[in-house]
């Protein structure tokens, strides 16, 4: 297969970026999207040009490192996948493919397609944990309803990639925050700090320049792990509860 690639190139956070166009040929349909970029980079190095910087690591859809905006969609033209799980068979021979970084005020570009998502770590540092240490009770001491554990697991499947933020027209991180808050709140051991956690994480999110949620549900549609916006409703309830306690 052959493709025309329009790739966002940007030297660093301070400089202005632009699209560069590259042609690529002899790509097998079974090649993954990131392998296609590996091939492009190998060609660029041979041509004496600077390769395209992009984030990637596990290449099996779990580390959350890859973060490309392809043809106007976070992680490209398929549902419930990360960029590394996208294969060239999803495109037509001869297609022009536009590749951009996540675009959000809270995720400044480091270089080309690489962004800085440290804000996500900072939100979790504001309360995305259960405050325990040392020796704790036996694991089976508190039975937990299977449905609650399953729901917690659904929310905890978030890989922290940031597709929700990149997709949201307001650049909101509500789905990310809600997933963590909900994952912990569904379990008895996480309920103790639930309201306080919701409040401090939302405050941190606002402080870091993420936008507000206007309920367009775009985040859910593009989440590679299919995390439901129902968690946002739970977050809102907890947030109000915390406010009332103030």
């Amino acid at each position, binding site marked *: 297969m052959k493709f025309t690639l329009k790739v966002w190139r940007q030297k*660093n956070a301070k400089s202005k970026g632009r699209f560069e166009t590259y042609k690529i040929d002899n790509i097998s349909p079974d090649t993954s999207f990131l392998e296609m970029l590996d091939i492009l980079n190998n060609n660029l190095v041979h041509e004496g040009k600077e390769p395209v910087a992009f984030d990637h690591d596990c290449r099996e859809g779990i580390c959350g490192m890859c973060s490309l905006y392809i043809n106007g969609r976070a992680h490209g033209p398929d549902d419930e996948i990360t960029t590394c799980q996208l294969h060239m068979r999803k495109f037509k021979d001869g297609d022009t493919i536009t590749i951009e970084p996540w675009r959000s005020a809270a995720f400044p570009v480091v270089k080309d397609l690489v962004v800085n998502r440290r804000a996500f770590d900072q939100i979790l540092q504001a309360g995305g944990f259960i405050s325990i240490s040392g020796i704790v009770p036996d694991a089976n001491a508190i039975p937990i309803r299977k449905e609650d554990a399953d729901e917690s697991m659904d929310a905890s499947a978030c890989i922290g990639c940031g597709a929700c933020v990149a997709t949201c027209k307001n650049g909101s991180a509500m789905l990310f925050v809600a997933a963590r808050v909900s994952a912990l709140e569904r379990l008895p051991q996480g309920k103790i700090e639930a309201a306080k956690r919701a409040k401090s994480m939302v405050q941190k999110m606002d402080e870091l320049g993420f936008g507000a949620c206007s309920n367009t549900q775009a985040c859910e549609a593009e989440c590679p792990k299919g995390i439901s916006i129902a968690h946002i409703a739970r977050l809102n309830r907890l947030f109000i509860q915390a406010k009332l306690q103030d």
Partner: protein
Amino acid sequence: MAEIKLDSKIPSGPLAEKWTRHKAAIKVVSPANKRKMEIIVVGTGLGGASAAATLGELGYNVKIFCISDSPRRAHSIAAQGGINAAKNYQNDNDSVYRLFYDTIKGGDFRAREANVYRLAEVSNLIIDKCVAQGVPFAREYGGLLANRSFGGAQVSRTFYARGQTGQQLLLGAYASLNRQIAAGTVKSYNRREMLDLVLIDGKARGIIVRNLETGEIERYGAHAVVIATGGYGNTYFLSTNAMNSNGSALIQCYKKGACFANPCFVQIHPTCIPVHGKQQSKLTLMSESLRNDGKIWTPKKLEDVEKLRKKQIKPSQIPEEDRDYYLERRYPAFGNLVPRDVASRAAKERCDAGYGVNDTGLAVFLDFAEPIKRLGRKAIEERYGNLFQMYEKITDVNPYEEPMQIYPAIHYTMGGLWVDYNLMTTIPGLYAIGEANFSDHGGNRLGASALMQGLADGYYVLPNTIGDYLSADIQTPKTDVNHPAFEEAENRVKARIEKLFKIKGKQTVDELHKKLGNIMWEYVGMARNEKGLKKAIKLIDELTKEFWTDVLVPGKNGDFNQELEKALRLADFLEIGKLIALDALDRRESCGGHFREEMQTEEGEAKRDDANYMYVAAWEYRENQDPKLHKEPLNYEVVKVSTRNYKN
């Protein structure tokens, strides 16, 4: 440098009491003094994150480093199947002793008894801790924790969170880490790669890192350094490791005097998605948990193989009587749940005999038709849904309808830095934990034991043992990074980087890395022999020269430069590759993941040589000559050493 003498420091006393007695005997550091001590942890996977969080909770000052943009990206996140513990919640006669014994036996009697017993002992605490952190383990309808079985075990002792257990455990450790970062006890340095270890008066006192965003070289000092950077599987280019996983920290420590133990013990995982073409960048694991229900087979008739390859028939059309469930045939007692090394070799044997089921001839089937019929599709979906989805995304084949195709691939490295019972390397003040050390898995690691070991080391072992070392250091002031040792190390790193840029050769890093991978897989892979290993050593020497004269690294330093990152790592992989081959050549026995073709039974089973090779091979670096081999003899006081038998 002082003469290296391996002292495993295994405590005296009965096996079951060693750890308790040791903890009582070692020194502790008071809370007031902990506040004055600094510890560097390199790596944020299960080992690094759990260690840093726990050390922070204890009151130490911790600096933690990772190469990714966030600690949560570490490759532990990709572990799928589960974590073992000796809880015996199923009342199926499991115990600390049984977990210990299975691990020793699974490791083909090449691990230390005392270390493995301690691992089994603390395994139960890990599950308690993870539940308290909010890890959403699978549960039964009554609200209690669920278990499943893994290879090499006849009990159900594996705890899991769907097919994402590593992710959930890492998120738990990362949450504890975040709590300490917020509390100010841990400082996190992201997108930093360790490029050298700094010794002052023979003790580990700091590291040199490259800031991957800016290209700057930075210095960090501490009272002790903990290496938690995982294994070196990417030496083989194609592996199930993440793209950025590398062995550079291990090699830097090795070159500074830390012995590298059992490098040839590399685990080849039997159930990975087969290689599809030359453009492939990595291999994807299909969790071992699939072998709980999935049945592995190849056709009995070569004519069916031909038809499959030509796509004239579908696998589901081959009748039951024409299928060879070769694991169930060869190993009736364990069937599809034999340990990984055994299952991998059996797949290779079938494919070498011409029964490989795809066009490359390097694939066997993992079939769910029978369990789907028995349990219903919904039950299978509940257990393995995300794995089936992942398989379909990659291969475009629906595994609910047709069997998966699988083949062995490099997955884990049992070898690593040599450590004593306290997890300290041969360099005072330098510790290695998790996959980065060698200590617990012998010649072969059992499924669901990597997560157990990473967390055992990080939550329960290292935080205790490091206190014993640091207690002698409470008067030592903070390490001064202006010390000449830092200057010297930094200059060496800078010179190495400059040298790489100056070569301006004709081959890219990936092209050279693929060459190394081919040599390793061909001669140092699933089956090894003397002639092949000698050839591999010669080829790696030649390739190393080629690398240092013909590599093409674009750009300049002082910038985000992923090609430079890869070049620095490949330079180290070349050294590890040779070390693996040297060790494999020395070990003229078949043992665990290391199979020497000269040493096999008539039935093709591995033949160990306990009389000559019951030792840990610890290699000491020497400049411009082959490394020196030190042997740590393994003494089995409790377990009766026997030939592994998974047949009856």
